[in-house]
């Protein structure tokens, strides 16, 4: 019940909660943990997901259309926690749903449901005093995003206030898969390490075992988001392409597809000696 990266490299798996349904997200999260995910990020669907690319936008629209609310995601976290006591659980949200819910109420309930950490995508560390006080009050780890464009002063503030791990964004832009990783991520991770000894996870555009192996050479963990969310989309009868649909027996296949994908992310040569 803590954020730990026992595997090398560690894997943080992002799921948009409620896509295609809360029950499906629960089953997929359990399958992901059993397949070797160290940390599950449960994404709270939001109407204006300004940091996310089209794959996660579509997932959020579907989740919202099904009426998924913040309290549902917290409850889902509690269900996952009850079944997998050792897994790392992070709530990944935009700020407005949390503000509307009430920061203190959110912090109390997240802690009560066994959440380990919280990442608020659009809350910068300079504006986070009230949030940090609430996280500290209930013992939740605040995780901040560090970008290649973050100046040293901000990286230092992020390093000072983060707990659990630091999320390094591999490149400028929105979430989504890409062919090759740029050198920006390695430079950023080296800069973060000047101020922090926390594990550093690299995300945005990580979609295959090659990327994970590359990240493993300079960081502690890789975050996989759009690649997983897209796989779930394709493995779900209502949203998969006709070709996928014919080979699919229903959303129950998404947990299996995700588990296979996650196992494939750590090929033997992907485990670096560090």
């Amino acid at each position, binding site marked *: 019940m803590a954020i730990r990266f026992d595997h090398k490299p560690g894997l943080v798996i992002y799921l948009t909660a409620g896509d295609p349904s809360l029950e499906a997200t629960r089953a997929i999260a359990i399958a992901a943990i059993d397949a070797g995910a160290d940390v599950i990020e449960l994404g709270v669907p*939001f*109407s*204006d997901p300004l940091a996310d690319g089209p794959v996660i936008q579509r997932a959020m629209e579907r989740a*919202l259309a099904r009426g998924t*609310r*913040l309290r549902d995601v917290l409850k889902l976290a509690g269900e996952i926690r009850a079944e997998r006591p050792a897994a790392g659980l992070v709530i990944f949200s935009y700020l*407005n749903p*949390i503000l*509307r*819910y009430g920061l203190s109420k959110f912090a109390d309930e997240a802690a009560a449901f066994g959440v380990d950490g919280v990442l608020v995508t659009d809350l910068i560390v300079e504006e986070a005093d009230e949030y940090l006080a609430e996280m500290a009050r209930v013992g939740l780890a605040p995780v901040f995003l560090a970008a290649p464009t973050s100046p040293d002063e901000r990286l230092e503030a992020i390093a000072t206030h983060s707990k659990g791990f630091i999320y390094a964004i591999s490149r400028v832009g929105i979430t989504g898969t890409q062919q090759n990783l740029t050198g920006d991520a390695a430079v950023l991770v080296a800069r973060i390490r000047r101020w922090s000894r926390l594990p550093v996870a690299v995300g945005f555009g990580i979609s295959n075992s090659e990327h994970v192996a590359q990240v493993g050479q300079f960081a502690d963990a890789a975050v996989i988001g759009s690649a997983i969310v897209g796989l779930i989309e394709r493995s779900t009868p209502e949203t998969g392409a006709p070709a996928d649909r014919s080979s699919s027996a229903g959303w129950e296949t998404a947990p299996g597809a995700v588990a296979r994908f996650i196992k494939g992310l750590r090929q033997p040569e992907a485990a670096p000696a560090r």
Partner: protein
Amino acid sequence: MQDENGQIALTHSVSAGLDYASIGPEHAALHDSGRAEYVSQDDRAALDAVVRLARTEGILPALESAHAVAEALRLAPTMAAHDILVVNLSGRGDKDMGILARELHLQGA
């Protein structure tokens, strides 16, 4: 503008600059402190105000500013002759010609 779960509401305005669900922090602070009062006017009132100001003064206001003109038209009859009413025309309507032609059904535009 948001629902009870903090999801941002969809908006509509004939004026592109007002077709947005949020306001800036300065306006929010002025509202909270009570130093400014905020009122609203709809698409129809703004379009009517554009036409009225253009025909009577030869000034083509931006659709955003036309909302203020519409409010001035509502407010002026309630005031005394010696009261002073200032309208800030924050932009010009040249940029809105396409929208105005469509909304006012102008020919040959």
